[in-house]
């Protein structure tokens, strides 16, 4: 099974500032997908952003962007202009391109936003 590592259990950011969450993964495959999911307190997990490994361009969704470094097997998430609603646990996840079901998740990073 692929290993996904999130080395930061907790991160704190001032409102309106930027925070970057790190994620590294281990794989021998060349084609795969990477995801960041957000789990707000007591609420459902939702997809924040996804990246196809064959695309060199980093994905962006509004204030959320990724820095995908394929050779380094790194996939960090940057949250710009942080808002109170960004407070949540964030999970990095990996999926092989050869199947459409198995997601491998990291341990998660809890983001706290200070007002």
């Amino acid at each position, binding site marked *: 099974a692929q290993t996904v590592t999130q080395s930061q259990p907790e991160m704190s950011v001032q409102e309106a500032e930027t925070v970057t969450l790190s994620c590294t993964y281990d794989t021998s495959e060349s084609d795969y997908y990477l995801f960041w999911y957000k789990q707000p307190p007591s609420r459902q997990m939702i997809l924040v952003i996804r990246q196809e490994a064959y695309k060199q361009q980093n994905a962006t969704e509004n204030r959320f962007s990724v820095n995908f470094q394929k050779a380094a097997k790194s996939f960090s998430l940057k949250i710009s202009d942080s808002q109170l609603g960004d407070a949540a646990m964030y999970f990095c996840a990996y*999926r092989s391109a050869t199947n459409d079901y198995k997601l491998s998740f990291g341990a998660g990073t809890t983001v706290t936003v200070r007002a």
Partner: protein
Amino acid sequence: DVKVTQSSRYLVKRTGEKVFLECVQDMDHENMFWYRQDPGLGLRLIYFSYDVKMKEKGDIPEGYSVSREKKERFSLILESASTNQTSMYLCASSLQGRIADTQYFGPGTRLTVL
């Protein structure tokens, strides 16, 4: 919007009880999944199903079984609950054949086994 619902948000059971966790999705998704979420371990796949009556083991299937009699419903069964099965259980669903598609998650069931 895709809606994935789970039968209970909180559940307290005793050791040795048989426990059923139910999950229903309303978007005609072929794939359904059961995960458990533990602090410091992220989400780990217990079982998944890609069609009615079809199931595949995930990474941690021991102590669990599943049932999928209808496309929209996927049940997780703890035959004889144990304290080490105290956890948050998340159900998810997705379309088949669209490998970049996201999984949609339910709100979770926090199970405590005493």
